[in-house]
Structure formats: C-alpha cells, structure tokens
C-alpha cells in the first residue's frame, strides 16, 4: 500500500451519481447532443454570418416562378445546405439555428422559473402544513383541472397587450414573456407536488429532529438539512420537463401564439411548412426531425440522470 492509498476520500452521493452517469453510454451521447444544440444556439449569429446563411435574407434566385425551391430536396445546394423556404427563399439551416435559440431559451427559462416557483411553493406547503398547505394544494388541483390550452389561446391577445402596456417591449419579446408566464402558471404544480411529497417524508427523518435538538433555526433545516437531499430530484425533474417546454413552444408558435415570422422558431417553420407539404416535404421534415432529436436527447439524458441519482444504489453497485 502506498502512502497515497491511505488518504481516505469519501465518495459523496453526488460524486457517486456522476460516476454512474458517466458509465451510461446512452445518457452521455444524449448529453453531447444537448451540448451540441446549446452551442449552435449560442453561436447561431456567428455561424450564420460566417457561412452566409442569414435566416432573414430573401433569395429569389433559389425559387422558381411558382415560388417553389429550385432543385431536389427543397432546394438543397452549397449555398443552402438544407434548402430554402418556399415563397421567400430564406435559408432553412440559418432559420433552424436561430430557431434553436428560441426553443432552448424558452425551454431553459421556462424550466428555471417553474422549477423555482414549484420548489418554493412545494417546500412551504410541506413544511408548514395547516392552512397554507391546504390553500396551495387546492390551487394546484384547480390549476390541473383547467383546460390550459384553451386558456392559453384565449388569453393570448389580451394578456400580451396588457404586458406591452405594462412596459414589456412590444412584439416578439412580449410574446415570449407571455409564453413563459403561462408555462409557469400551469407548470409549477408538478414540481410543487414532487417537492411537497419529498419534504413531508424528509421532515419525519430523524436527522431533522437531531438538528432541531441542537437548536437549529428553520433556515438551517431548510438549507442545510432538506435542500441537499432535494437537489438531485429537482435537477432530474427539471431536465425531464425541459423538452416539454420546447415542444409546447413549438406547438404554440405553430398555432400562431408566440413568435411571429420573420423571426425564426421551429414552431413557425412547422406551421409554415404544412402549407407546402405536397410540393416541398423536406421543409416539413427538417424542423420536425430536429425538434424530435432535441426532445429525445433531453429525455434520454434525464433518464440517465434519474438512474444515476437513484438513492437505492450504493457503492457496491459502482
């Protein structure tokens, strides 16, 4: 035994989880795909200008007299690797890259805000039982009972206008704000329920009583005793709910809520492409498949994370 071997390093549960995640090939590949999309989204302006793939420039040359792309597969060419939009001649790859920005932005902000709201309400609900808990639980039930899609569509115009009159920059910014707002209003419930259940069971654990018996404050109980036990599940849950938000954004844009052309979003592209699906099926396929790959990558990554933090596993299984 060397000297180095005698230094004893504890393996924290999070490090064990990380080790397990890294051995999960599917999850690692999914993570790479996600990272790839994130990088594309971040560097979309740079990439499109370097490769001359502007998502807004109209290229009439790429279209025939009927407004359809010239060439096979929706007009794929060296100038437009994934073809051009029928009618306008805008570059599809460029629009796809810019669309990734919108999808991921909505996905991340939506997830962070709903997770935050759900975490706080779930903790409050679980810790202070009584009246506050009843109120939060009832509101949650009510929220789930609402026909949310109907409401989102109905409230779109009035609420977006309201936001604009409250000083939110007009146009696509206000529309995005509206989407994130409704995602939060309808999305916090799931996280809150998860956290409430966890807190209810954690608070009965004896280590919480132990901390109280030393005179620990509520702040200590929440931040030092409970939260460290919740992070893993919060992260897993958030990862698994993110693709849902990406898909919802696409659906809403498809329905004409949310961003408007010429802004690029996968939902807008899908909505636009159905008009041309006979003449130009590639146009429909490209945003559809891209959306599917991203959503699937997030789901597989989330599954991997969930398996990795499974509390039942221990050192032996490493």
């Amino acid at each position, binding site marked *: 035994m060397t000297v180095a071997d005698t230094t004893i390093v*504890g393996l*924290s*549960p999070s490090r064990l989880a990380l080790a397990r995640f890294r051995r999960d090939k599917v999850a690692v590949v999914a993570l790479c795909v996600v990272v790839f999309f994130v990088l594309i989204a971040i560097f979309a302006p740079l990439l499109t200008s370097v490769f001359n793939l502007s998502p807004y420039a109209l290229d009439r040359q790429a279209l025939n007299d009927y407004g359809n792309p010239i060439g096979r597969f929706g007009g794929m060419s060296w100038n437009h690797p994934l073809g051009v939009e029928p009618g306008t001649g805008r570059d599809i790859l460029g629009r796809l890259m810019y669309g990734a920005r919108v999808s991921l932005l909505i996905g991340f902000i939506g997830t962070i805000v709903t997770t935050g709201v759900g975490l706080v309400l779930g903790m409050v609900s679980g810790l202070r039982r009584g009246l506050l808990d009843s109120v939060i639980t009832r509101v949650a039930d009510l929220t789930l009972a609402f026909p949310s899609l109907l409401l989102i569509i109905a409230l779109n115009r009035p609420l977006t206008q309201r936001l604009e009159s409250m000083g939110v920059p007009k146009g696509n910014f206000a529309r995005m704000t509206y989407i994130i707002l409704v995602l939060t209003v309808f999305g916090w419930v799931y996280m809150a329920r998860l956290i409430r259940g966890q807190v209810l069971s954690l608070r009965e654990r*004896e280590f919480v009583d*132990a901390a109280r*018996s030393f005179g*620990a404050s509520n702040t200590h109980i929440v931040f*030092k005793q409970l939260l460290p*036990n919740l992070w893993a599940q919060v992260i897993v849950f958030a990862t698994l709910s993110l693709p849902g938000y990406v898909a919802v954004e696409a659906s809403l844009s498809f329905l004409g809520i949310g961003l408007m052309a010429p802004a690029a979003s996968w939902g807008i592209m899908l909505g636009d492409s159905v008009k041309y699906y006979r003449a130009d099926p590639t146009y429909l396929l490209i945003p559809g498949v891209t959306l599917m790959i991203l959503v699937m990558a997030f789901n597989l990554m989330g599954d991997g994370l969930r398996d990795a933090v499974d509390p039942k596993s221990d050192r032996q299984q490493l």
Partner: protein
Amino acid sequence: MTPILEVRDVKKYFPSGSSRVLQRPTGQVKAVDGVSLSLQKGKTLGVVGESGCGKSTLARILMRLIEPSSGSIFLDGEDVTRLSGSDLRRMRRDIQIIFQDPYSSLNPRHSIGEIIATPLRIQKTVTKSEEVGRVKELMHLVGLNPEHFNRFPHEFSGGQRQRVGIARSLALNPKVIVADEPVSALDVSIQSQILNLMQDLQTKLQVAFVFIAHDLSVVRHIADDVAVMYLGKIVELGPANIVYGHPTHPYTKALMSAVPVANPVSGRKISRIVLTGDVPSPIDPPSGCRFRTRCWKAQDICASNEPELLDRGDGRVSACHFPELEA
C-alpha cells in the same frame, strides 16, 4: 443531591382523528399520561415498555422537540419546561439524543465530519479551526477511525453509523443523553459492542443516560434504575436490581418472563407468562387499571379504581391493587 434530570407529572395528549383544517379533532391520544422520573448525575435510567406505550414521545418531550401538554422538566435544578429563544438554545447543549434508526438519523448528503460538527456549528462552541480537531477527537472516542471523517454515511455499517450518532450526541458535552432504543435496529452481535461503548463513555464522561428499550434484557446490564411504562403511565419504578430481582407489577413480571433465562440448567422450572391480546388504544384506554384487559389477576376493583404508584418499602414504587409482594 439534586437530580440532574427531573420530570414531574408530564403529560402529552395528541389530538386524534383528522388533522385537516376544517375537521375538529375527534379525540385525544394520551401518549404520555402523568410521568414522573428522576435521574442522578452519571447514572442510567432504563425506560421499558411495549411498542406504542409512549417512550419516544417522552424522549421527544425531554428534548423539547414537542411541548408537553402539562407537567414540568428540571435540568440540573432549573425548570426548563417553558424556556424559549436563547435560553432554550443554551439548555439544548446539556441534553442530547441518540436515535433508534442509524439510517434516518444521519443526513445522507453530509459527510461524517459534517454530521458530527453540526451541533458544534449550530451552538458555535468551537472556532472553525478547532472544529476538525474536535471532530476527530470525538470519532476516536467512539471507536471510529478519525481519518474517515470525510466519508459518507452510506459507506458505514449500522453499528458504525450508530457510533457516529453517539459521537454527535457527545459533541456538546451534555449532562444527559436520551437514547431512544439505540440498539434495537442493530444485529445482536453488534448490540453488546454499542452497549459496552456507552457504558465506557459514561464512566469516562460522567454523563447520565435515559435509556429507552422495548425489552428488559437490553436495559438489564446498563441501567441503575428502571421505569416500566404501560400505555403512557409508569407502572413500576425502582433500582434495577430490586425490580429485576423481584418484580411486583404483573406487567413487569410478564415482560421479564419474555427475557431468556441466563441459566436454564438451574433446575427450577420457570413458569412463562405469555401476554395475550394487543395493547389497547391510547385514544380510549381501559378504565381503572390500564393493564386490566391483559392481566391474569384482574378483579372488579381493577376496572373501577385506578391503582396509584405506591412505595413498596424497598425504594421501588408500583401501581397495582394486587402486587406480588415478597412473602
């Protein structure tokens, strides 16, 4: 000599029935119903009784984790029942707890070092730089390798985890440690190691133990005094050798006959008393003597009059109309 811990007529009634806001509680669970005890410095008081008789509730009251419905608690002569704020925080140093479940009593996300340091950090008794030294000293004291301080609970066995719990309970140099069934979750082979450790620590540190158990055999070797509880009440209390030597309450007798006999070849035939039936509900305990539904000596008076705890002349008290007094 003033006892280090004194409990006077402590009661805890939980509202039973629905805890929902709009529904009134329908009754009361008399979990602890008038318990009085005292414990001398550096001694051990064993508290024994079947599951559900209120032992853990009593422990939680002593720790001020829950408030008693009535009664008072004196720690080293000071009435601590109604302390709050900084006085309560200060008092908490003097009384610590060891829990039954070595798995749920340690936060799985904290290293052993952090777990043992938690009381030190909350009470701010040592500086940051002294902390590691104190933690290692405590680990050494309970027979753990001090170099393991940055390991995590999942890397330890049940017995080792219970040692961690003991180290944590010692961190603030308490005068009293309440041990709520500290060995019931452990393998029999490990139980005696932990019991020996606790005894050694008591001799070394002069700390007093309230040692809770559900059978008499575990308490036998460690307790100076024994209190036998049944449905929230003490039915027999006295020096361990006297209570074990000659139990006067039928319930104590029944519990003792559940204890395996040390020397079965002694020739004497021991009549085993087997307790039949379940413990009645503490929501609606039997009238008179609470043990009467399971007592083989019960008479009419047992149902109408509640027996008082009476001195049996040998430093022991018991509550029975027909005690088994020595002939």
